[in-house]
């Protein structure tokens, strides 16, 4: 091997090490900063405590978990039918030309900074909700709707790809047996594409859980257990962003504790998505 090649190989190795090291460092940092707080209240107390009042030294994050889960669930409730429906439209119904226009429009959604979504929600959505449902308008509904739009690109593009890669032989077989187009899509194409669709949903869910700025602006940031979809909530990520600047050392540790919980959730979700991809393979196999 020539010297040049050796140097090249080493450089590649270094860049690989850098990215892995970054993940490792962040992991170590989050866990070392957050574990003391979790230990103090105990894992169960930390996760199931319903009182989040840092000024009184109460660090129960259940209201924050509930807030995150509520906006995420609503986002999925809206985003899954809209996203999968759109993917079916792009991959199965419309012509290539229209599909290309739609696709670039949807991919553009992914490029909009999240603070812009938040701002849009703040000036348009929150007032509408206030007028329709009463209350402040800062609510689970507002967060759920904005998040639904934000996870659309993930769901649509991955689902559409996986639907497009279903071999046309399956469609032909179905149609030749006397199935119509709807039956072919519902009973043959979508089941064959299910691994990609499930993965897209889980990745979208990860995006929704991790999203900070947009939900922070429109959910009201009230760390109380929500009782209705019109209630304001605080999310895990939003709370970290809001409170970190003025947090006392103990409070800061608790915020890092939230970071640990988020970290674990995201790792589990990504693992699940990969497992689904592997278990069921690509379309058709």
């Amino acid at each position, binding site marked *: 091997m020539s010297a040049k090649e050796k140097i090249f190989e080493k450089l590649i190795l270094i860049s690989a090490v850098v990215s892995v090291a970054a993940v490792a460092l962040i992991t170590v940092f989050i866990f070392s900063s957050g574990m003391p707080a979790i230990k103090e209240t105990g894992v169960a107390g930390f996760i199931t405590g319903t009182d989040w009042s840092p000024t009184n030294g109460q660090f129960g994050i259940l209201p924050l978990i509930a807030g995150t889960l509520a906006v995420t669930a609503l986002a999925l409730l809206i985003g899954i039918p809209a996203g999968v429906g759109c993917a079916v439209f792009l991959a199965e119904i419309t012509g290539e030309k229209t599909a290309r226009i739609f696709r670039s429009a949807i991919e553009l959604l992914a490029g909009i900074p999240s603070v812009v979504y938040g701002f849009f929600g703040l000036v348009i959505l929150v007032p509408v909700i206030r007028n329709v449902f009463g209350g402040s308008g800062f609510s689970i509904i507002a967060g759920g709707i904005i998040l639904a739009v934000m996870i659309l690109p993930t769901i649509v593009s991955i689902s559409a790809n996986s639907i497009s890669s279903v071999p046309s032989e*399956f469609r*032909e077989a179905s149609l030749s*047996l*006397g199935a119509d187009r709807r039956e072919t899509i519902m009973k043959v194409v979508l089941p064959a594409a299910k691994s990609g669709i499930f993965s897209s949903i889980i990745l979208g869910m990860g995006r929704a859980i991790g999203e900070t700025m947009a939900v922070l602006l429109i959910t009201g940031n009230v760390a109380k257990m929500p009782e209705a979809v019109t209630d304001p909530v605080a999310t895990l990520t939003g709370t970290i962003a809001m409170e970190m600047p003025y947090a006392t050392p103990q409070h800061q540790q608790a915020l890092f504790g939230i970071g640990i919980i988020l970290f674990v959730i995201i790792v589990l979700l990504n693992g699940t998505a990969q497992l689904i991809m592997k278990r069921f393979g690509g379309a058709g*196999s």
Partner: protein
Amino acid sequence: MNNTKTKFEIKDLDLYYGDFQALKKVGIDIYEREITALIGPSGCGKSTFLRTLNRMNDLIPGTRIEGQVKFDNKDIYDKDTDVIGLRKKVGMVFQKPNPFPKSIYDNITFGPRIHGIREKNRLDKITESTLKEVGLWNEVKDRLNKSAMGLSGGQQQRLCIARCLAVEPEVLLMDEPTSALDPVATSRIEALLQDLAKKYTIVIVTHNMQQAGRVSGYTSFFLTGEIIETGLTEKIFSVPENKKTEEYISGRFG
């Protein structure tokens, strides 16, 4: 082998893909409970013709059809034709075995379920009888709930035939059903075709002239979108009337 009832009556059939004319004035009668083989070199229009018989060409944009395709004396290209009902009666087996990525049981019962059969009992019976008809029952009866993708190519193709039979068709269209299979699997399918011809009308496209000779009662020779010659298989293969047919059969081109 003397002809019975005419199942399909095709006259002056022209088919265009955009500006390209793929079929020219095709005319042929297809007889009930006979095997009709369509032979000819690649691109001669035989597969295209096969797909006009269950209107699978409808799926290709830019396809235009003129002329007449009568099935049981009704033109299937009439405006009021029930295409779904037609495809139920005229099943199709494809070149590459294409079972759904579902269980063997779900593959067989897909058609019947689509057409409204829900009772588990009936579906079970259909599964058993069709799998027996294609000689697959003993090989798969213990793993009906396993994926069909785990079967060998030959088994998959027999499963696809069984899947067609499950909707109780009258005609089976086969588009080079053995070209992706090894010789042993091919001869099993050929033997199966002989059995099936007692009950069903079969139209088979094949590249393999020995196959046409072995299995079919009637043969049509296609060339560049036209039928050059049609007749009893034994006659086509022994004393063809047209010089081009003779050249193709004796292997001088194709």
